[in-house]
């Protein structure tokens, strides 16, 4: 029995995907946690951009919203929201964009808009696009972080909010999307990556303790497993300590509280 949860493993795996010095467009929640974990471990020079307009934020504790004061106080500069999207994201200055998903299909297209029914009368109305469509289009790379389940990993998404690889090879180019799209989908079970030829998401890593059967069972399309499937390094003691301290201190709470 591991002394860490699958969510912790997922967060650590996401943090490890951020090389030192890269410019990262961060949303609240797990992406922000992973980015701040990376900044406190192997990537001290990570540049964090939050869509609220904080460029180069170095929060002393985990923000609970993208507009927390701690982001503005610690930022290299605070810019307007139009400037974030027009001067910084749109021209492709951001290396990595983090996205979550309510639904994800085999070509890494993402739905965060509606589930079930039709658009005007959905069964479930989700929050919608936010910054995601342009993050997915313009960042050099996209990393999707999402728990893996058959409900989420669907053969077809009910609504394309953000484009992964569209209907397959060549679609991003046809659509004029400048970023290279999702390079990694990091889940609580492992890591999926687009096949170089088909663009279909295939299983490339399993987290310790997870099985191919679990992953297949949690995927709504026939999941291809890559021959060189490897097992993720478990979280190190340091990674776990820093991560837990971060989460305990979220929003500025004293970890002792």
């Amino acid at each position, binding site marked *: 029995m591991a002394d860490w949860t699958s969510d912790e493993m997922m967060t650590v795996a996401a943090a490890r995907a951020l090389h030192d010095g890269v410019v990262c467009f961060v949303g609240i929640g797990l992406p922000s946690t992973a980015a701040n974990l990376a900044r406190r471990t192997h990537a001290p020079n990570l540049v964090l951009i939050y869509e*609220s307009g904080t460029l180069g934020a170095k929060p002393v504790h985990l923000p609970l919203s993208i507009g927390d*004061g701690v982001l503005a106080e610690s930022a290299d500069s605070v810019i307007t*929201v139009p400037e974030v999207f027009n001067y910084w994201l749109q021209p492709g200055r951001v290396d990595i964009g983090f996205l979550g998903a309510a639904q994800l299909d085999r070509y890494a297209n993402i739905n965060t808009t509606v589930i079930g029914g039709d658009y005007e009368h959905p069964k479930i109305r989700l929050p919608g696009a936010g910054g995601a469509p342009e993050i997915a289009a313009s960042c050099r790379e996209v990393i999707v972080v999402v728990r893996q389940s058959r409900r989420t990993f669907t053969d077809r998404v009910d609504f394309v909010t*953000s484009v992964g690889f569209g209907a397959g090879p060549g679609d991003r180019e046809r659509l004029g999307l400048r970023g290279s799209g999702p390079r990694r989908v990091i889940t609580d079970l492992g890591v999926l990556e687009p096949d170089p030829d088909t663009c279909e998401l295939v299983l490339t890593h399993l987290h310790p303790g997870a099985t191919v059967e679990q992953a297949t069972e949690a995927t709504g399309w026939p999941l291809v497993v890559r021959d060189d499937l490897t097992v993720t390094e478990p979280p190190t003691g340091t990674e776990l300590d820093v991560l837990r301290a971060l989460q305990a201190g979220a929003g500025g709470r004293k970890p002792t509280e």
Partner: protein
Amino acid sequence: MPLATFAGLDEAVADLVHDGDTVALEGFTHLIPHAAGHEIIRQGRTGLTLVRMTPDIVYDQLIGAGCATKLVFSWGGNPGVGSLHRFRDAVEHEWPVPLEIEEHSHAGMANRYVAGASGLPFAVLRGYTGTDLVAHTATIKTITCPFTGEVLTAVPAITPDVTVVHAQQADRDGNVMMWGITGVQKEAVLAARRALVTVEEVVDEFTPRPGAVVLPNWVVTRVAVVPGGAHPSYADGYSVRDNEYYQQWDAISRDRDTFRSWVDDNIMRAGGE
């Protein structure tokens, strides 16, 4: 140029916000004009087209109270918590009234405000391409670069009848200063026909501050002094974000009756803030 005048929040809302208006309450997590939203509910406005990039709790309340028949937005959630239940109930079950939606992305909404502030009918961006938003939102079209032939996306300007924002300070002449995360507020004010600004306090003279945005009194219509008018959002230098309120809102807003009694107790009977 007509100059900004001071008024009580109730009077200012009565003067500037009319049934059927297109109203933008802006503030990106920081400086959200909650008190003004409550006053709009208190005065029973109906048929509003509400515009906001992130319709969070403030619009969940206005929608649940039946003030709005249309929402123009890009992200409708409770930041860090989850769903906006009143927004979902309106879209999923037309309660308390049907809510038409005009859905965009943040980049699109920001540029729509920029176009409005610039006196242009539209803005150009790289956005939406390949998404299903294009098929469902009429205010997303393509435009071709007359020099390169490249096809890009065009979105129309947003020009609200009235924009409402919250700022830290006004001076005695009605000039306004805000600082910290200022989001898209300057554009939202400049794009509007009328602008209402609630402020934490009035000062004799502004202290120049890093990152401060100044709105001269000739682009502001009314200033209302409402200390704490952003709560549960915050005003940098005056208050901190009430994160517990955002968490509690999930339970309050989940059930129609709980929501209604909350509105009665906390808005209708609360009187002016």
